[in-house]
């Protein structure tokens, strides 16, 4: 019966360790409106699927009285489990144990589960809730961060990596989320910054709250560091599950196919897009009009809304959408929207997700701030990402496709596999007004009525060039299609390109304009 005794002892010991920092610390955590690390893991994973690793790992620090301290789990919970029956690796920093501070053993638990995820080719989810480096451990903590960042980089493009910010994530710690594919934040709970308000005030005299400096909304809307923004932890968990359901487990697989559904949005594309190219509409309605169940899962909804990115399903298969959004800033490309689109394109390409581009854009955003912010090198990322991608690439030109924007938005010239245009498409070197002003400058200047002459010349340009047929005549677009044909055509292109094989020269890696 001694084994029975051992089992009971194990249960007792586990029960103590599983409480992390203990009841008082747990109450404090709850009082901050936060779940505990263990509650978070259990809420995310399928019921009874969590298998913990390294519960009994202990730190080895002997200075500053640390030798007398027992830190349960060393402030982080790690393990494996399933989501919708599919395996994932997961870790959650435990703020109730010494503020979730990161020491060497804490980091080594994380790197162990990351190594495991990479070897087993399953997604890795990291929940961040930590005061930062455990100062008592000195450079041991720094070593720990570095070892995590290295693994984030090694795993990049091999397995999906997800970071969830459910508490503070400050200083060097922010670079792990920044290296991962998707960052989730929650209003009032997430805080991310390199230097906090205290340091900023003492060094620079600038007074700012944690929320204003690096709260959830700031990262979702202004910095673009976050990809998903939620009002509560449970909403956030739903978003994570939805994302995981759309992705393959690794770069050697394809996302699981599900039962195809017809779009539920009854609006037709022809009714959504106004004929007047100066009038806005919500391009997400066009996406909803073509995808299964009209279910579009948008990424970075609040950041650079002049471009829309996200996942949906077409005939049951996951696809990635990149679409200009005329609703904001007329759908121009600028520094932020270029960064947003380029990174998403590279994610889809890494994980075998076909790309569908919906184009309606007047060009790049003019302005000194844009030029000085480096719109040249930011904009170049889009060209690089599209050209480099070998997944099936489809473009539908909805309306305007002018100038550099036409080239950038997955044109034939950058290697698009299929390019379609609606009859409303205008594929030209620039907008008719600008073109007429340059080509007919002399006629307009010398006319008795320059305004009337300009209007006439603009109309002449519109009639001749603001249509899809000039490009169609050169074979730059494959077909001019009716709006209602879009969904079926997209489905056909994907089924044709299922086994697409695209040649790329051998190289160690390219040098994208980071």
């Amino acid at each position, binding site marked *: 019966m001694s084994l029975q005794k051992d089992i009971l002892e194990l249960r007792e010991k586990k029960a103590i360790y599983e409480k992390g920092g203990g009841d008082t610390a747990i109450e404090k955590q709850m009082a901050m409106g936060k779940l505990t690390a263990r509650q978070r893991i259990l809420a995310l994973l399928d019921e009874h699927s969590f298998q913990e690793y390294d519960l009994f790992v202990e730190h080895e620090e002997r200075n500053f009285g640390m030798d007398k301290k027992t830190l349960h789990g060393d402030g982080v919970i790690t393990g494996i489990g399933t989501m919708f029956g599919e395996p994932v690796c997961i870790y959650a920093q435990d703020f109730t144990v010494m503020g979730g501070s990161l020491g060497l053993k804490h980091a080594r638990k994380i790197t162990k589960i990351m190594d495991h995820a990479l070897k087993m080719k399953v997604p890795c989810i990291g929940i961040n809730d930590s005061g930062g480096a455990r100062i008592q451990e000195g450079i041991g903590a720094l070593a720990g961060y570095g070892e995590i960042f290295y693994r984030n980089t090694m795993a990049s493009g091999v397995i999906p990596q997800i970071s969830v910010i459910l508490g503070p994530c400050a200083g060097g710690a922010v670079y792990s989320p920044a290296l991962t594919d998707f960052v989730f934040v929650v209003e009032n709970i997430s805080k991310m910054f390199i230097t906090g308000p205290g340091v900023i005030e003492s*060094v*620079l*005299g*600038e007074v700012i709250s944690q929320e204003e400096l690096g709260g959830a909304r700031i990262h979702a*809307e*202004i910095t673009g560091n976050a990809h998903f923004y939620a009002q509560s932890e449970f909403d956030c968990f739903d978003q994570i599950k939805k994302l995981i359901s759309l992705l393959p487990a690794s770069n050697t697989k394809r996302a699981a196919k599900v039962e195809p559904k017809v779009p539920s949005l009854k609006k037709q594309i022809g009714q959504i897009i106004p004929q007047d*190219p*100066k*009038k*806005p509409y*919500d391009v*997400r*309605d066009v996406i909803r009009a073509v995808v299964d169940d009209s279910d579009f899962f948008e990424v970075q909804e609040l950041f*650079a*809304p*002049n471009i829309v990115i996200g996942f949906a399903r077409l005939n049951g298969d996951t696809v990635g959408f990149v679409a200009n959004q*005329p*609703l*904001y*800033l*007329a*759908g*121009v490309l600028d520094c*932020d929207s270029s960064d947003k689109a380029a990174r998403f394109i590279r994610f889809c390409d890494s994980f075998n997700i076909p790309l569908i581009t919906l184009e309606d854009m*007047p*060009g790049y*955003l*003019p*302005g*000194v*701030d844009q030029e*000085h912010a480096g719109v040249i090198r930011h904009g170049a990322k889009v060209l690089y990402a599209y050209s480099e991608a070998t997944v099936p690439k489809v473009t539908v030109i909805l309306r305007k496709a002018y100038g550099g924007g036409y080239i950038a938005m997955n044109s034939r010239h950058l290697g698009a596999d299929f390019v379609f245009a609606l009859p409303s498409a205008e594929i030209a070197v*620039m*907008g*008719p*007004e*600008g073109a007429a*002003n340059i080509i007919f400058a002399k006629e307009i200047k010398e006319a008795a009525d320059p305004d009337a002459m300009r209007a006439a010349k603009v109309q002449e340009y519109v009639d001749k060039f603001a249509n899809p047929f000039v490009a169609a005549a050169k074979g730059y677009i494959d077909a001019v299609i009716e709006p209602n044909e879009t969904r079926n055509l997209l489905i056909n292109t994907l089924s044709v390109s299922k086994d697409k094989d695209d040649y790329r020269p051998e190289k160690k890696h390219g040098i994208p304009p980071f």
Partner: protein
Amino acid sequence: MTEATKDSEFVDFAVTARKYKTLLTKKFINRKEWETPNPNNIKSYIPGTIIELNVKPGQKVKQGELLLRLEAMKMQNRIDMPFDGIIKSVNVNVGEKIPKNFLMIEIE
């Protein structure tokens, strides 16, 4: 933001020669408008603390002479006179913490 958006909320937004009806982003509205820099205005290029001040209004100063030292990020930065001239005004004191782009000294 979609159905609720009324036509009246759209603004005219010029891209090259044409104006489009669209919405603006917070970031776009808050962007800094470009100002041609005035060489007579000596502004702080980094936030910091004035730890030394060598000039007074009315003083003639030669190019390359030290105007002040601005300590920022534990570095004591020299701010020198960009060309020969007369100091018009001094807007900082020793020990003062100033933000970035603060007009420290004006030259006549």
